[in-house]
């Protein structure tokens, strides 16, 4: 299974990478929104995990872009900060499937990813 992770905080992206690689997923990392959008076509992920606030393109733009693509529906988990409830609702409207609020536990993320990929 291939997962694209878009997150601009180095410590978080590295933590997510280590945790999900341990679970056996193939990962593609992007440190900003535009990089993530550019990588979607080539990498063809089975899931996208994206932060909301990122440079160049936001998580919401990644969701919009992904949902406009024809073919299979890629599940999307968003990483949001506390107090971003409105943005989370917007993300769900655009087609996000799940969200995790920062701060979060890497183990929780692992469980959510597995659950979403098997559902």
């Amino acid at each position, binding site marked *: 299974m291939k997962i694209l992770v878009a997150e601009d905080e180095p410590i978080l992206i590295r933590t997510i990478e*280590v945790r999900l690689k341990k679970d056996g997923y193939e990962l593609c990392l992007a440190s900003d929104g535009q990089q993530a959008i550019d990588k979607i076509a080539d990498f063809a992920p089975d899931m996208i995990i994206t932060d909301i606030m990122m440079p160049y393109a936001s998580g919401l733009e990644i969701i919009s872009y992904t949902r406009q693509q024809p073919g299979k529906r890629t599940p999307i988990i968003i990483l949001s900060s506390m107090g971003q409830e409105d943005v989370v609702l917007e993300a769900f409207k655009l087609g996000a499937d799940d969200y995790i609020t920062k701060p*979060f536990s890497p183990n929780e993320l692992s469980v959510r990813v597995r659950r979403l990929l098997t559902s």
Partner: protein
Amino acid sequence: MAVMVGTLLSITIFILIYLVLKRKNERKLNEWREQLSGALQTAIFFENEGSTQATIPLTFKTIRGLKHPGFRQLLIDELVLGKKSLTGTAASNLVLLFNQLGLDKLSLQKLNSRRWHIKARGIQELAVMEQRQLVTRIYRLTNAHHELVRMEAQSAIVQLYGFEGLRFLDIIDTPISEWQQITLLRLLARMPGIQSEKIANWLSSGNDSVRIFALKMVAEHHLHQLHDQVIPCLHHPHPPVRMQTIRSLKEIYTETTSNPLIQVYSTQTIPCRLTILDLLGNIGSPDNGAFLSQQLADREDTLKLGAARALIQMGDVGRQYLDDFPLSGEYPWNEIFQQAKTEQTA
């Protein structure tokens, strides 16, 4: 000419040296970051299997790097960032690493600095890394002379001790800024243990900002049991306190709230009066109809509109008051009433 060439040459050499040093510094920082990334991941995924004496293993290179103050500070920064973004065992392990390396001493040293921003940084580091044993040192700074140090210390205490941490409200003689009040309320929203008796005490504080903050807590947590202690604040000499009192009453009003509001109405500022009218509209008691109808004759158009809105909120009884108002067909009442009615239907 020679002087000009010499100056240009000196500037060029200076820029070159600066760029070389900057590049060297950046390279070093990246190298350290790379090194620390490994150490942090080891810590985040460390499994201590219940041992209280657990030690996170570190590479020789990392241990050697710790001798350099810049490296230690970078590690603290990364630990703080990680701790803010992660929860559970991962977050606990970052605190474990902070303690294991004695980095609390470095943060503590910052509290002795004469520069406010270093002091504030130290407080933040200690709070994020849950250094509860140093609470007395931080607590002393909750009434510090510098506003930003004070704010950081107050937030840190609340972060560490929740509502209990607010005991600094008993002693501070400096004002709590609007922004700081929002920060504290946001921190408290995630924490249990609100004690209404304590808030009741702060409602009679001599520090106006403490009183306002207490009123905000009453509203935020819908502390209906403090209704009778909130009412006397309507007589406070300062309008901001009175304004917050009315706003807080909006969240906890009962059938007895109208009378004290009507009694103090004439002594209030226009913004306070408007808020009272709005609150009376919310209360919606037909008993207030006559009072609101009187306010339709006020010289201020904003108050006329406020009274009309309140009457409309009251329903049919209130609308009847508008229709019965002797000047309802004349300007500006006809337009004001129309606006209030349109707003209601919108």
